[in-house]
């Protein structure tokens, strides 16, 4: 019996269905990456697994039991970080730790929180409020909070999208290490095929909405540990990347599609202030987000 199982899951928000007939089965300890266009329903899928939303049809089962609501056994890194703005970095994580490990003595609790703050390199920002942090730093707090809960399942909704390349690869390694050490089950939503190939056992594309469903899964046969630099020259890596990319493109082949060029995230500030100026990103104003009509040919 699979550890996490979605069968025939459909979800609508009053309009046409966002998701229909989603079937997914994860073994305990499996690392699955879900890739898909923005707006196709990836966050909705994560909310259904987290129990924050209820499916209209079908069931979500964890360890054989139907998921009736959210719980700390499924740690979520929300796409928009969802830090509580009146709590400091430390307090945000401590709130989760207090709740999940109520019996831990205070000193151990504190050490636990500090450990995860250090893991995401935020020790100097320990007592800062979220609004004093850059987007990438907030994202790291959010990752630290989910990891500190030591959940059975980690649900990561584009957790590294706002990070600079350096921090991104550090946290990729960290996620892989934690997954490898505690054999957690991980569902990673990402828009970065390379990231999916680096981390996942399996990549599943989500077809574009409305009425999105999971496509055929692509097993990532690359041996672990995977070295980011070596991978780039690995023929198998190149083959898989082409496969996944083509599968995604295939969904929209010949179809007129509106693609939002830039993923918008709240208040993203440049993460690495020492980086050369050209790599600086400024959050786009709404009118600057380009919607382009593209025709993708098969």
């Amino acid at each position, binding site marked *: 019996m699979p550890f996490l199982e979605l069968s025939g899951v459909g979800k609508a928000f009053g309009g046409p269905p966002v998701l229909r007939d989603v079937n997914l089965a994860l073994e305990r300890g499996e690392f699955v990456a879900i890739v898909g266009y923005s707006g196709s329903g990836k966050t909705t899928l994560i909310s259904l697994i987290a129990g924050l939303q209820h499916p209209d049809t079908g069931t979500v089962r964890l360890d054989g039991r139907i998921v009736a609501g959210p719980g*700390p056994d499924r740690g979520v890194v929300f796409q*928009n970080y969802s830090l509580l703005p*009146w709590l400091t970095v430390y307090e945000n994580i401590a709130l989760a730790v207090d709740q999940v490990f109520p019996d831990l003595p205070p000193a151990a609790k504190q050490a636990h929180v500090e450990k995860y703050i250090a893991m995401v390199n935020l020790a100097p920002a320990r007592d800062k409020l979220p609004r004093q942090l850059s987007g990438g730093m907030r994202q790291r707090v959010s990752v630290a909070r989910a990891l500190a809960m030591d959940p059975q399942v980690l649900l990561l909704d584009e957790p590294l999208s706002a990070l600079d390349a350096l921090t991104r690869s550090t946290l990729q390694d960290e996620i892989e290490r934690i997954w490898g050490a505690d054999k957690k089950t991980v569902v990673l939503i990402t828009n970065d095929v390379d990231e999916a190939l680096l981390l996942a056992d399996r990549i599943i594309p989500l077809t574009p909405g409305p009425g999105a469903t999971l496509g055929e899964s692509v097993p990532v046969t690359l041996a672990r540990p995977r070295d980011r630099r070596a991978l780039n020259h690995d023929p198998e890596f190149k083959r898989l990347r082409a496969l996944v990319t083509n599968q995604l493109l295939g969904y929209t082949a010949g179809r007129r599609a509106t693609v939002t060029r830039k993923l918008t995230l709240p208040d993203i500030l440049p993460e690495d202030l020492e980086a050369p100026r050209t790599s600086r990103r400024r959050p786009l104003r709404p009118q600057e987000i380009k919607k382009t009509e593209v025709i993708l040919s098969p």
Partner: protein
Amino acid sequence: MKKFKLDWLVLPLVGVAVIVGLWAVCSATWAKDLPSPAKTWESSKPYIVEPFAKRGEMDQGILRFTWYSLVLVAQGYALALIVGTPIGFCLGLSKAFTKTFDPIIQILRPVSPLAWLPLGLVLFLGTGKEAGTYGALFTIAVCAMWPTVLNTAVGVRAVPQDYLNVGRVLKLSRWKMLTKILIPATLPYMFTGFRLSLGIAWLVIVAAEMLTGRPGVGGFLWQEYNALIYEHIILSIIVIGLVGFVLDRLMSLLEARFKSA
């Protein structure tokens, strides 16, 4: 208009001068019973230069009267917040509660303090001599509570789903959900309500004191009207206005602190 040095001070003084000028003209021409500014100052001087004097029950320095009023307002206002905030939370949290009580709230809200006071007095007739005080407290609380109730309700409904989701994933208990998420997220709205409520509480005190004859600025105003000392009506109005202004400023400062937090 061009900005010049000290315009923040000079322009308001010009405004005051215009109004005092109009007042002087009125009292000199068609409103013969209206005391002139000079006469008002003359007659008010003892109350201002000895603001804390106590010459008799209804003959005290103006700040002493103000103090009595403030104490009563503080009590009524505290009552309004203690009762109003939980009601606001219930309204914000429960659709059924809103459906049940919103119509009655909308009907009671516009009722004037002058209408509540007699009811307050009747309610507390059993307390004998203290009926005036309790009636006034009741009136202040009932009238001042609405902005707190409504702003808190709006604030609770505006708590972002994201914050609630964090609480749900962590399986926070109802109590922790309230203290760790709902209250901090609602605080800025609550303080807007608190500020507006304080303004109303101060409005009501005058009416309450006039009708109950309690010592205080409002009671003083009414007594001096009956005693035909019209200068002191104007003195009272100025003091009431100034105090109201200061209270509002203080609450704004407090509110701004919570807005930025």
